[in-house]
């Protein structure tokens, strides 16, 4: 989809697990690795804290992409949270796809506390994807538009 507005900057919400990915983001920062400022991080205690409603609400209020980052499977601070998150997000993404909403607007990545570089790379890639997809038009609330 072509970008309608040359000045358009995507808004991206990243839900990051407190124990791995948030620390990964920190590491990316302290390692001075670049990733776009369009990514707004929301710290959650675990990737399985992310209720599908959070993701839809983010889109409602104008997000163009939502990414969920958690510990690698097997490394969850709470033993199994990310296993549950994995199933939940798979089903949710599949449902969004079923409703015809661009599947690439949502993503799950496992980023550990040591993977600052992976965090930066993931975010760069994701932002790139959202740039190609353009503005989120299908899943937003018209009232929130300015």
């Amino acid at each position, binding site marked *: 989809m072509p970008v309608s507005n040359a000045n358009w900057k995507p808004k991206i919400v990243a839900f990051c697990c407190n124990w791995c990915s948030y620390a990964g983001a920190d590491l990316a920062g302290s390692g001075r690795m670049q990733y776009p400022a369009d990514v707004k991080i929301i710290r959650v205690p675990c990737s399985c804290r992310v209720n599908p409603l959070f993701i839809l609400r983010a889109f409602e*209020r*104008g997000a163009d992409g939502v990414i969920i980052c958690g510990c690698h499977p097997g490394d969850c601070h709470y033993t199994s949270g990310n296993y549950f998150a994995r199933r939940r997000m798979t089903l949710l993404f599949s449902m969004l796809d079923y409703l015809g909403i661009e599947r690439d607007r949502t993503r799950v990545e496992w980023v550990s506390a040591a993977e600052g570089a992976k965090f930066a790379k993931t975010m760069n890639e994701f932002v790139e994807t959202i740039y190609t997809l353009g503005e989120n038009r299908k899943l937003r*609330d018209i*009232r*929130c538009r*300015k």
Partner: protein
Amino acid sequence: MRTFSAEKLESLISSMTLPVYAPVEEGNTVIYAPYEAGKKLRLDKVGTDKTPKEVLFPQWETLMHFRMEGKTIELTEEERAKEDYVLFGVRACDMQAIRVLDKVFLSDPVDTYYAARREHGIIVGLACDQPGKNCFCKNFDIDPAQPDTDLVLWPAGDTYYCEAYTDKGRALMDGWDTEEADENAVAEIKENIAKKYDALPFAHLNLTGFDGEHLMEKFESPQWKKLSMACLGCGTCTFSCPTCQCYDIRDYDTGHGIQRYRCWDSCMYSDFTLMAHGTNRPTQLEKYRQRFMHKLVYFPSRNEGMYSCVGCGRCIEKCPMNLNIVKVIKALGEGEKE
């Protein structure tokens, strides 16, 4: 009385310069929506899935906008409707329902949002020719062959007859390409319609005792418990009803201001009367009773005997559990005979 051929109907609608809301097909439902070329007109459908009330009193509308900064509030009103439009193909029952809405919204103090839409609308009525199986408008003294509108259309096979009753209606009809017709052309049609409606299963309900005088008696009837048992508390009946007008006012934070909007509400919902200390209609029995008491007792008691049921039959068709106002009238009416 004027007439035109049925073939010309669509071109006649397209020829009107005003926006036209007409019953059109949308998916497998029929709703009143702006008519555009390519949309399928459904003048045959009695008891459309959505009612014409939606044009005058939409399911939601923005009332005003607020901007809050520090301790100050800035208020901007939403503009009222200011363009004329045509509401096409309104049945007699639905027109009577609009009269019911008028009683509510146009009584002092006037609701200006509704009033503006009402004023700018030209309503073209459509006489029924084939009743729906659930119609029971006859009980409320509604003549399905004579909608109380600005302009009335009578379908008669391959022609339509039309007559205007108000200045608005006459002005609209003057722009139509019609021919002169005999003044009594529709007399026989009307008679036929009356006969058909008279023969319907729910055409002769006993409404005696549904008035303010018997308010307490109806309210206290032991029948309500049984009647309301299967009620799910959904809002289907209220939202498909052409006269249900209860509304809620809510605020929505758009991130850059507050929109205050009004939306339909339903007496069936748990938070309809919920206050900080609880609700005065705690179970479905009270909620269910409220709806029917309002239609059959409270409203007539306040409005010179005018019922706020028009017998359109939509709740009979729509209720997931087959509960409806006819069952209520029969159950409560019978209780009285004993």
